[in-house]
């Protein structure tokens, strides 16, 4: 019996939404925006992926066909590596424009990524971004507010709430019916999105991309479905507690404005004031100061030669089976890499602390937590970039040391700096290959966001009985 009543209420709410021409329009516009934003995002990602493939191939060609050269010079000559993009980033391009597209890997230095697309942009690129994530995080919640603010308040104002409750209907059942009916309306929006997303992933990326992208895509859809439900839930609670529909609407709109537009900017400002990160000039000065403290060349030469003499049990450098020059270069490279790593870690830890403050502010405004999670799942957040940069640095150190070691191994007969190697050595360096981290890694990074959303769910669950118990009838 109870289930029947709830079903009847849910049906009524569902029908009411679809009979309202304004909502049909809004749903239509939202679906259109999802489609257009998704298509544009997908086409951008496809373009980038083909450019990426091409660029990586050409970089490899440049590296392999550089001709005869001293291996250490080859390490100085370096190579560019490019960051691959996931197809799921079509839904949320996140920070891609602000992170730079390539890293230049060379001896002695850990370079920052270059050529941020946003630098070339105008006022428009930063003013407002349209992608599936912004539609889902900014526009759909506004529609949910418009669906929910009058759910109880309008019935109260028109007197039907008293009539309904006088029939002996418990407020909790009324709430549940409305929640189910309106959720079903939202599902109408989510299902085409899910089908379209999965279909595109399958058709464009093939089975392999589908296998790696589908868990991220489904998680992304699940995240936004949860977010919409939380918004709906909160909207219904406010509607139940406010005496007038006008007050309910104003409160919900104020929350929406803060959650979507004011909170994120303010949050990042607070975070950067609380955790000051070094400026680029300070960072450079710190790196230079430490680099100047690194052992000088003569001392290093003596240290490495003494170690080698002991290791090989000979008394003269000339008797060593290796050329010490390469090993001295390798030894210096370790120190250079350490100097950079220490300071870049320092910077990144400061940024991580800023991000943590920002993430914690999701306790007040869940939109910030969802934004973080969305970019994380799409692979377009800063954490992913850091992961990529770490992989690139490991590769850099490996190939540079390989070049240095080659100098030590091969050049006994000739002067270390006149020795040249060729294609065989360049080919022995495997191409840079980078895979996006697994989904579990994303959850691990974004644990705070998940906990915050769980906290919001719990809070709403606790507030619901209280709000319904004290719901004004007139």
């Amino acid at each position, binding site marked *: 019996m109870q289930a029947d009543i709830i079903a009847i209420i849910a049906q009524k709410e569902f029908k009411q939404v679809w009979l309202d021409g304004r909502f049909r329009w809004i749903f239509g516009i939202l679906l259109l925006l999802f489609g257009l934003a998704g298509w*544009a995002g997908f*086409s*951008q990602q496809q*373009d980038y992926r083909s*450019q*990426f493939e*091409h*660029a990586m191939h*050409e*970089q490899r060609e*440049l590296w392999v066909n*550089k001709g005869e050269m001293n291996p250490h010079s080859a390490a100085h000559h370096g190579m*560019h590596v490019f960051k691959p993009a996931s197809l799921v980033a079509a839904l949320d391009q*996140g*920070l891609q424009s*602000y*992170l730079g*597209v*390539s890293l230049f890997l060379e001896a002695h230095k850990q370079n920052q990524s270059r*050529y*941020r*697309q*946003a*630098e*070339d*942009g*105008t*006022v*428009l*690129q*930063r*003013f*407002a*971004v*349209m*992608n599936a994530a912004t539609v889902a995080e*900014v*526009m759909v919640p*506004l529609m949910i507010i*418009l669906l929910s*603010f009058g759910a109880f308040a309008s019935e109260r104002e028109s007197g039907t709430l008293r009539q309904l409750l006088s029939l002996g209907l418990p407020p909790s059942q009324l709430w549940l019916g409305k929640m189910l009916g309106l959720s079903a309306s939202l599902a109408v929006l989510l299902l085409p999105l899910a089908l379209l997303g999965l279909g595109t992933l399958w058709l464009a990326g093939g089975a392999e991309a589908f296998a790696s992208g589908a868990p991220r895509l489904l998680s992304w859809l699940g995240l936004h479905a949860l977010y919409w439900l939380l918004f709906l839930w909160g909207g219904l609670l406010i509607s139940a507690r406010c005496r007038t529909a*006008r007050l309910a*609407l*104003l409160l919900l*709109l104020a929350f929406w404005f803060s959650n979507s*537009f*004011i909170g994120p*900017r303010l949050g*990042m*400002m607070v*975070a*950067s*004031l609380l955790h000051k990160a070094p*400026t*680029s*000039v300070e960072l450079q*000065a710190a790196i230079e100061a430490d680099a100047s403290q690194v052992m000088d060349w003569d001392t290093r030469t003596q240290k490495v030669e003494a170690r080698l003499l002991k290791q090989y049990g000979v008394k003269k450098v000339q008797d060593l089976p290796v050329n010490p020059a390469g090993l001295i270069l390798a030894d210096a490279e370790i120190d250079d890499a350490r100097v950079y790593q220490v300071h870049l870690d320092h910077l990144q830890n400061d940024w991580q602390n800023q*991000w943590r403050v920002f993430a914690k502010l999701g306790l007040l405004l869940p939109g910030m937590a969802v934004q973080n999670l969305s970019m994380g799942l799409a692979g377009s957040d*800063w954490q992913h*970039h850091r992961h990529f940069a770490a992989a690139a640095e490991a590769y850099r150190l490996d190939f540079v040391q390989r070049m240095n070691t080659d100098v030590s191994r091969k050049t006994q007969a000739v002067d270390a700096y006149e020795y040249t190697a060729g294609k065989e050595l360049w080919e022995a360096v495997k191409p840079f290959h980078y895979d996006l981290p697994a989904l579990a890694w994303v959850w691990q990074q974004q644990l705070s966001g998940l906990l915050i959303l769980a906290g919001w769910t719990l809070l709403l669950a606790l507030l619901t009985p209280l709000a319904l118990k004290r719901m004004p009838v007139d």
Partner: protein
Amino acid sequence: MPISLLFTLMRHEWRILRKEIILVVGLLGFCFFLGGLNGAYQLQILTQSQAELAQKEQQRLGKEIAKARSEEAQFKQEGMPLTRYGKSARNPFKVAQKGSQALLPPGPLALLVLGQTDLQPLSTQISLTHVENLPRQEQLHHPLGLFLGQFDLGFVLVWLLPLFILGLSFDILATEQENGSLRMLLSMPISLQQLALGKICMRALVLTKAIVIGLLLVSLGQGLDLRQPEILERWLGLLGITLLYGTGWFALALWVNSRKRPAATQATILALIWLAVLFVVPASLNLALSALYPLPSRVEFTQATAKASEKVRNASSQLLGKYFEDHPELSSSKRDEAEFNLLQLAKEDLIGQEITPVVAQFRAQLAKQRQVLQNLQFLSPALATQAAFNRLAGTGHERLEAYRNGVEAHQKAWRDWFTPRIRDNLAVQVSDYVRLPVYRWQEPAPSGDKLTGQYSLGLTAVYLALIVLLLGSRALKAYQNYQIVDS
């Protein structure tokens, strides 16, 4: 309408709404405070960084001159000509490659509108290398902060001010009409138009005062020198655009109120219009532009420059020969002594030749996109206002353009100065250091050139004024048909 009646209405409205208005003005003031605080903080970091960079450059130059002086003293002692040089101190190619610093100072009103400031470089070290490959000192900001944008006064004025205006004005008459008090009010000798206008004007006047005082407090409190005519001109321009923009939102509220809908419906309509103007239209425009006129690919650009360098390196000896053929004036000089320097110069030149078409294509595509945007920005008053703010504050992409042009011009001067010395293998003497080209930043006028700048700033003002006139006149006309009593 007699002015005295308007003032009476405004006073009456003020007495009724004092608490609400003080709350809104207080919130706006707090946002001004936060925006000003952040603007000042970001500006302080930037100016401090640049001061450190300038100091470092001075120290480097001082050391370089000291080395050159000591080498010259040694040469004099040994009776060698000062036009020769030793290992590195006065080598013309090396001095040229150590370069000259070109700082990009923050915009005159960056304190108020940070605009694109946080994405722009602090300085460029100019040398003989191609402009696109010159080392630049970038700023470091958390990428998430860059993505979200700064909480500056520009954000408060463009994004939040309309919310405060709409929050105060979404229900001028609806509730009074619903509860019947409107009938009582209109039993006095005033028309509905006068009443609505009086109510709106009171709100507008209070907010105008708040904006002027807020802007003055932030500007003077953070040390903006409004006595300088150029700064004052920009500041007044910013205030003027703000007031026109704000009046536009008041006119919109007046018009929506004239449609006589329940207060909640009016609030919904206004919230949707806000969303359309501030978000949907600019974001859709962004989407359309990025699909139709995408920003040129930096991946391809990186590739092209890497390939050019590689091509030149692989063929350096042949290229050098060709370079000598193209520049017969060089082959007569002492090639044996200068060969290394010449080779380097030739390489830089040839890399430049390889990259130039790619750069030209890149810039043409960028310019095309910007031209389209320049025309389409008027689809959203908020976007047009933000663009005008950036231009007035000197923090838009135009600044980076002007900087790039300045850097290019300076590099040309640098190159022209050093090339004959490298060609003739002449040392840089201590006395030459004062003659080296120095980079000087030329602040572009806020209006820019007549074709683009003045036109767009003036047009923005006219455009916003037209919106005010159109919405205001429609609203006042609509009040003539307003049903005071529901039939």
